[in-house]
């Protein structure tokens, strides 16, 4: 008898299509259910905000930026762990995002191991692959 365990939802918010395409497959391989959004506004308008256990969030996006979204979620009282992903390899950006209580800040391109470790940190667990 198989017990259906509900997989935790990870939402990806990134304006880059190749990320929205590739990341969900990897996340599913890692055992999560995934939803991808092309903008912060699209994510906020979806029915996933309450269900999302972790947010993989691009920093620089047209319109609402990653940090804008983080602030909005704080205002709404949604305490979702955030992992920033950015193509702007800037240590200052990383330091700032971590200061703002982000779980991690990954510079694109990042390895699946780095992502795995960041997710573990977000879910506060330590499990073997």
């Amino acid at each position, binding site marked *: 008898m198989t017990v259906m365990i509900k997989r935790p939802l990870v939402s990806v918010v990134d304006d880059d299509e190749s990320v929205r395409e590739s*990341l969900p*497959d*990897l996340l599913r391989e890692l055992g999560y259910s995934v939803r991808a959004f092309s903008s912060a506004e699209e994510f906020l308008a979806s029915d996933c905000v309450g269900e999302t256990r972790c947010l993989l969030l691009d*920093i*620089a996006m047209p319109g609402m930026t990653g940090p804008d979204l983080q602030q909005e979620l*704080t205002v709404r009282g949604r305490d979702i762990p955030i992992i920033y992903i950015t193509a702007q390899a800037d240590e200052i950006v990383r330091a700032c995002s971590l200061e*703002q209580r982000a779980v991690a800040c990954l510079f*694109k*391109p990042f390895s699946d191991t780095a992502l795995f470790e960041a997710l573990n940190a977000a879910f506060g667990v330590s499990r073997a692959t």
Partner: protein
Amino acid sequence: MGLGIAEIGAMVGGLIRLGRPLAVVLTTLCQLFDGTVKGYSSSVLLLDRTAARVREAVGPGLPDSYMKQLAAQDAAPGFWLHEVSPILSLTGEPLGIFAVYRRENNTGVTRCHSALMQQFTHVASAAIEHMRSEEALKRSAALLERTQQLSSTCCFSWRVKTDEISWSKELCQLFELDPADVPVTLDLIGARIHPEDLPSFQEIIERARGGVSDFEFEHRLRLPDDSVKYLRVVAHRTSDQEGQLEYIGAVQDVTHRRHTEEALAKLRAELARAARVASLGVLTAAIAHEVNQPLAGIVTNAGTCRRMLAADPPDVEGARETARRTIRDAERASEIVKRLRALFCKKGAASESMDLNEATREVVALSLSELERNKVMVRMELAGELPRVQGDRVQLQQVILNLFLNASDAMSGVDDRPRQLLIRTERDEENRVRLSVRDTGVGFEPQGVDRLFDAFYTTKSGGMGIGLLVSRSIIESHKGRLWATPNDGPGATFSFSIPGGAQDMTAGVSCARNLGAVRTAAVTNAEERHVRIP
């Protein structure tokens, strides 16, 4: 009183030498006359320069009231005007009047000889003339002093054969020498000259001894308190009364101007460097951002692919799909690189027919003060007949300037030999125009020549290492070549050659100009993508 005219002349001359006022001198003269010729009183009326008005009247033996009215020529009661003699200058100009009055009670015991009158008149004339020239001298000295103060300029003269130097008081102050330290000698001056400027100063002195015409130079002083002054010296060749070589000149204190210029140049250099670093940083970040996006896709897809294949059973279909995406993202990355290159080297810019010699001279003129400040001696050997070249004037001048500054930087640590910069233009066998910049700097190892043109390769502490790279890209876009060769002696020579004569340059000229466009785009991009952390 039996004073002879020679003694009278000597007495009056003594008073003049003592610097007594003219009125005192003339009064004494009158007293001497009155004492010599009993029964007569003499007076001198001093005319002003127009000879129309009495400037001063002395007559110690005559009543004051009369002297006051003398202009009216009325005789005072009891005095008979005996004889009047005009006092003339050597050139016949009227200076005054010597008038002798016979006293009423003079019974004619003593006779007043006309010859004596003439002699006194002569002494008076000499006294007045001397005073006048003295006054003129004082006035012109005062004027000179004022002018010197106004223009912060001092003057000097130098008799080359005897090394006699006359200095103005202000020059002593400038050199902080005690005016009592006269005579000023070349050694005394040399002791004040900044040690670094001493060799060139001595060279100029030697050249002047050889009788060059006028000379002009700048040098620094190092004063006893270690402060430094900048002086500009202009000297004109002339000859003294004996026909010997003499230089007269002016020295101007340009310290303030120099400090301002230096501060300005430093600020300009800092600004240029800051702008360069800033724009390059922005540009690099923009490129990195563009390229990192597809790279992220590639890495994620490859990671997923590996996991799908490692699963039990392996998800071959999923792996094939992620592999396809990996290839697609790699192509996308390569497309971005291609697009960036196109941006950097866009075709179809305007170019003009230009004279490379003229462009070179402009750059030399612009950078001369910077080069001089680095003690670099610049020599130009520009070919007489150079074919015109077709190209972007500003870009080519940037290349030339870059080569100058590189050469200057390469020589900044050189102290044991002259820092020489030789700029040469010539036409080669294939009608190409070649410009070379030869320095006597640190040079480079022959095996290091390839690295010179690498991006970010630099031997300078403040360098970015992109100057030569950009220069080469500009020259290549002009269908030319830029290369470096080590000298036989110290230093290196950087040269470029570009085709001469009219040609079609519609393609590829504006590479670096478009760099500006990319930069602007990158800045805009960076602003758009400005990260705001709440």
